[in-house]
């Protein structure tokens, strides 16, 4: 029994795979994170008064300071450059290490002032996973520039576990959210006025961002519809880990979760583009690339 379980565990994480899917996922992830944060500036945090300073554990334990505006600007530039080089697969390992180290600092910094949001925690963890992975063995400038003449990398578990680790992280995050609702309030979270009240409250701009639409307060007029929405939310969150082990579930829960995240932005206000970007790891990009190239190739064959 234990042996069978161990073998299943090993197969799930470490079955040999070609490096293509991981390489493409790397390029897309770093590229999209770069685009998301391209206009973001952290230098203003250097002159926020200490009366707002409530350090999160990482900053408190490691006694990490708020650097001056100049240093924060420099870190921001280096971080964005490292995201770009990691996306291109240039000096991939070094770029991933820099992207992770500076990313943890810059992404964590605002959470020391007033409130700890959760929307970017997943990005920090995925950066750490990718830092430890061999992501530059395909679809990278490293391979083009420094890998000439060398044989193509053999399929390996090295190219499978990082993608699955991001699946695991997403499952832990969303299952935690569903579990918290059921543990705190039980089914009353679904079968009460809770969701209708929440949607209506967000019409009063109580969140980090204003809702993109007036649909939330409108929807709140229909309690049965709101309870249905609450039920879908809890089911999608709590059952999200099924996508780890079931191919069919992979077609349901990750897309449904993206829909919920977009719904939150539309109806309530808070933004979760980071979570949506992380969902790219559910797509087999190597198969997408193969399908595209199969379509394109016949067209470029001379008549």
């Amino acid at each position, binding site marked *: 029994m234990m042996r069978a379980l161990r073998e299943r565990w090993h197969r799930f*994480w470490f079955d040999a795979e070609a490096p293509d899917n991981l390489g493409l996922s790397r390029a897309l992830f770093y590229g999209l994170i770069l685009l998301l944060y391209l206009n973001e500036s952290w230098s203003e945090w250097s002159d926020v*008064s200490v*009366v707002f300073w409530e350090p999160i554990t990482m900053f408190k334990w490691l006694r990490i300071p708020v650097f001056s505006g100049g240093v924060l600007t420099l870190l921001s530039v280096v971080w964005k450059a490292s995201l770009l080089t990691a996306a291109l697969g240039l000096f991939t390992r070094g770029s991933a290490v820099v992207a992770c180290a500076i990313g943890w600092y810059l992404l964590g910094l605002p959470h020391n002032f007033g409130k700890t949001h959760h929307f970017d925690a997943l990005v920090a963890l995925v950066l750490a996973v990718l830092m430890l992975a061999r992501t530059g063995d395909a679809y990278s400038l490293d391979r083009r520039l420094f890998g000439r003449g060398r044989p193509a990398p053999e399929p390996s578990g090295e190219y499978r576990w990082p993608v699955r680790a991001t699946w*695991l992280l997403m499952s832990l995050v969303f299952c*935690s959210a569903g579990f918290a609702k059921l543990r705190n309030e039980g089914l009353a979270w679904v079968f009460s006025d809770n969701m209708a*009240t929440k949607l209506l409250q967000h*019409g009063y701009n109580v969140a*980090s961002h204003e809702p993109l639409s007036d649909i939330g307060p409108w929807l709140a007029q229909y309690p049965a519809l709101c309870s249905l929405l609450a039920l879908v939310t809890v089911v999608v969150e709590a059952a999200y880990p099924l996508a780890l082990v079931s191919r069919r579930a992979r077609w349901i829960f990750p897309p449904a979760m993206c829909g919920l995240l977009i719904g939150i932005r539309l109806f309530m206000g808070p933004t979760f583009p980071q979570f949506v970007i992380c969902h790219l790891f559910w797509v087999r990009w190597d198969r997408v690339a193969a399908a595209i190239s199969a379509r394109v190739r016949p067209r470029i064959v001379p008549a």
Partner: protein
Amino acid sequence: MRGRRLVLVNGLLAFLIGVHAYENAIQAGHWPFCSYPMYAEMETERVVTVFRVFGVRHDGSEAAVHKNEFIHPFDQARLADGLENAHFDRSSGVEALNDVLERYERRRLEREHDGPALVRLRLYRLTHQLEPLAGNADTPEKRELLAESDVLAQAERLE
């Protein structure tokens, strides 16, 4: 994959699962490891209370300045929580408002936003009875002044 590498990766996976289980058990968050409550608390009261910043113009009239473009690098929720904590936990509401006002005016003069010129900020606790379609979002039932910044020094009031 080599044995040592397998041990490292398995250790990482066990660590990730263990830390998230721990965070859920203690219902806490140690960013980037969190328990992700994400609206888990029940909301059934037909009342909403918000902490909101208003600016005072030169003529004494008030203007809402809670939008993110005016309070950068904060967002609405972060600033509301930060001011609430500074006011109630550390009795530093005035100092916190002074800080927000100075940055607001500096950024306005640098044309980073197009808000009105202000001489001081006020922190209110607003209470709304929930109404259909949030029709009373701009007219709270109760408006309680919690703190007021100092008047911006003349030298800083550059037009």
